[in-house]
């Protein structure tokens, strides 16, 4: 009997302590002579010498952190056919965190807020079978969410939760530093979401940009993981989908359009349509043709654009800023700095194949992530400044970063123009590695993209384009021209036949030589 009453006293004391309730006027102590715990009155001076059991002593392990994602849980309950929904419980970090994100499952029951305190599954309106498999019940009310453990069919006490709310202000820590609300409405087109592009995207979403159009045709491969923002769990996925999820994991309210397209002349129409309303273009592709095509698109759409490029083995890189009508365009750079524009990182078999010969292979030498990221970070910074515009708390920085070309050097690479730079050491005067250099370059007035190339060429040759020259390449114009000029067209056929004769005559001597 006595043992039972001692045991009951100890159990009651421990139960109250676990709930955070004190046992008024009572203490629990350890009696080394009896070799057991005893619960005594606080006024009992005979127990003064006995060591007291403290709340800290009663802590055997930390309860899991429960994280509830409000938006998908509300959605799960709204979509349920009955009065409750079942979702998964994700046990992370060996039980340290329980995440309830709305994924399909049966370990968590979602219900509306009951009107009265509930002690068993019956009060929850959940069938016994579902209550027995569930570990948590989440109650969603007007005031928010709360969770309770389910122990078999008995409802336990409320557990502390962290709620990721529907209308979360993800950027409250940077608000005030600059105008994060302004970036929420901005739309950025990112073409190329490889190692550099994925980093740029991640920084822009962290800064508060709310709308993205992503273009890339590639899939995540194991070899990408050491440099890309996405990891092994994304291998095999299209990069645009993996990076889209990366954006939504930072800002679930972001709008993302993901296009799996290879940039070439045949897809440019689709890309133009997708980019029609972006505020900025970021070109992070790895080949000349796509950069030229996208440069022309930026000029055509009158959109500012940044071109990111990394040199071979990532010994350095450059960022080109194109503001149509104001700065040189990418084609201007190609014509002005042909060697610099050809120096590029060979990071994949595809890039190597594009420039290699079978008897002159090109080694695949991807650079380190740490050597690529300074270039990507500069693009992200410049992009944020461009999106914020002139009336910004960063206006002073915007006024400093004014050149169209920025050069970064990671190291003094042998065989390059930078091999003999002054060593970094404590040098503050000479050009050295690990800092940015702004380079001015004028626009090329004869540029084939942003300048008067055609008129210059025609003047140089001393000819003019005639209507029929243009009509030849315009669909519909040819039929109209043919109908209007039926008689002259037939007459013109005669000279064509006459012109064929000389060609045949030229072939005869070749045949004679072959036979000879």
């Amino acid at each position, binding site marked *: 009997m006595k043992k039972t009453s001692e045991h009951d006293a100890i159990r009651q004391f421990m139960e109250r302590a676990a709930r955070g309730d004190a046992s008024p006027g009572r203490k629990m102590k350890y009696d080394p002579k009896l070799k057991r715990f005893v619960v005594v009155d606080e006024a009992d001076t005979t127990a003064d010498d006995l060591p007291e059991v403290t709340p800290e002593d009663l802590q055997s392990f930390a309860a899991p952190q429960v994280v509830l994602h409000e938006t998908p849980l509300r959605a799960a309950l709204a979509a349920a056919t009955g009065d409750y929904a079942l979702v998964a419980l994700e046990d992370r970090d060996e039980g340290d965190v329980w995440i309830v994100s709305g994924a399909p499952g049966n370990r968590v029951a979602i219900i509306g807020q009951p009107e009265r305190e509930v002690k068993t599954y019956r009060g929850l309106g959940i069938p016994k079978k579902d209550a027995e498999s569930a570990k948590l019940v989440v109650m969603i009310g007007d005031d928010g969410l709360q969770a309770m453990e389910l122990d078999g069919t008995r409802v336990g006490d409320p557990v502390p939760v962290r709620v990721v709310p529907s209308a979360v202000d993800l950027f409250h820590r940077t608000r005030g530093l600059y105008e994060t609300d302004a970036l929420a409405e901005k739309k950025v087109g990112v073409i190329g979401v490889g190692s550099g592009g994925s980093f740029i995207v991640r920084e822009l979403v962290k800064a508060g940009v709310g709308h993205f159009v992503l273009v890339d045709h590639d899939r995540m491969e194991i070899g990408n993981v050491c440099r890309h923002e996405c990891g092994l769990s994304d291998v095999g996925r299209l990069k645009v989908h993996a990076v889209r999820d990366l954006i939504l994991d930072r800002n679930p309210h972001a709008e993302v359009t993901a296009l799996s397209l290879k940039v070439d002349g045949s897809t440019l129409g689709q890309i133009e349509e997708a980019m029609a309303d972006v505020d900025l273009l970021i070109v992070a592709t790895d080949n000349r043709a796509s950069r030229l095509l996208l440069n022309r698109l930026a000029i055509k759409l009158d959109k500012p654009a940044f071109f990111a490029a990394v040199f071979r083995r990532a010994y350095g890189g450059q960022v080109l800023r194109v503001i149509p009508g104001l700065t040189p365009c990418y*084609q201007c750079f190609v014509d002005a700095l042909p060697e610099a524009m050809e120096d590029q990182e060979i990071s994949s078999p595809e890039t190597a194949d594009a*420039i290699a010969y079978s*008897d002159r292979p090109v080694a695949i030498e991807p650079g380190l992530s740490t050597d690529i990221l300074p270039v990507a970070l500069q693009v992200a910074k410049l992009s944020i400044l461009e999106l914020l515009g002139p009336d910004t708390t960063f206006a002073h920085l915007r006024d400093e970063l004014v050149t169209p070309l920025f050069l970064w050097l990671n190291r003094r690479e042998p065989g390059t123009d930078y091999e003999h730079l002054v060593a970094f050491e404590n040098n503050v005067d000479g050009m050295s590695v690990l800092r940015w250099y702004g380079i001015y370059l004028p626009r090329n007035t004869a540029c084939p993209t942003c300048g008067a190339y055609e008129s210059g060429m025609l003047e140089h*040759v001393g000819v003019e384009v005639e209507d029929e020259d243009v009509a030849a390449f315009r669909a519909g114009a040819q039929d109209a021209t043919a109908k209007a000029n039926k008689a002259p067209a037939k007459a013109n056929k005669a000279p064509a036949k006459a012109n064929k004769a000389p060609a045949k005559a030229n072939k005869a001597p070749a045949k004679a030589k072959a036979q000879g």
Partner: protein
Amino acid sequence: MSWDQHQQYRLAMERRILRERLPDFRFFDPLRDTFVSGFWDSSQGNTYRIVVTIPPGFPDECPSCFIADPSPLVGHDQPMNDYGNSHRMHTWQAESAHPDWTKICTYKPASWSASHSIEKVVHKAMLWVEAFEAHKESGRDIADFLLDMD
């Protein structure tokens, strides 16, 4: 093929310049699989047919250049197409659409610029032909008679 407004004018310019500078070369199929073609006699008096195919992204995409006649083109000791992607012979792998045409390297796509005209591509093809004939005569690589782009 649907050329946009700028491409129409650029191609019109190319057409006009060819008519002026290389009248034996002209555009064919201007609204579909557009190409420039013409016959040219080398300094040895041999006639070659040079074809330059115009990609949908021209002038920002690099045109491809072929020797379409003689076909197949035979070098000093083997058909030129047997060399595939060859720096020594400045050739590319033959294309499936024209397996007997020899695809020659006038510009590498990685080095292409929209400021290069079709006339220039044809001139480079002519220079390749001269280098080919030197190879055919001597057995030496075509690369011995042309400058590297790298």
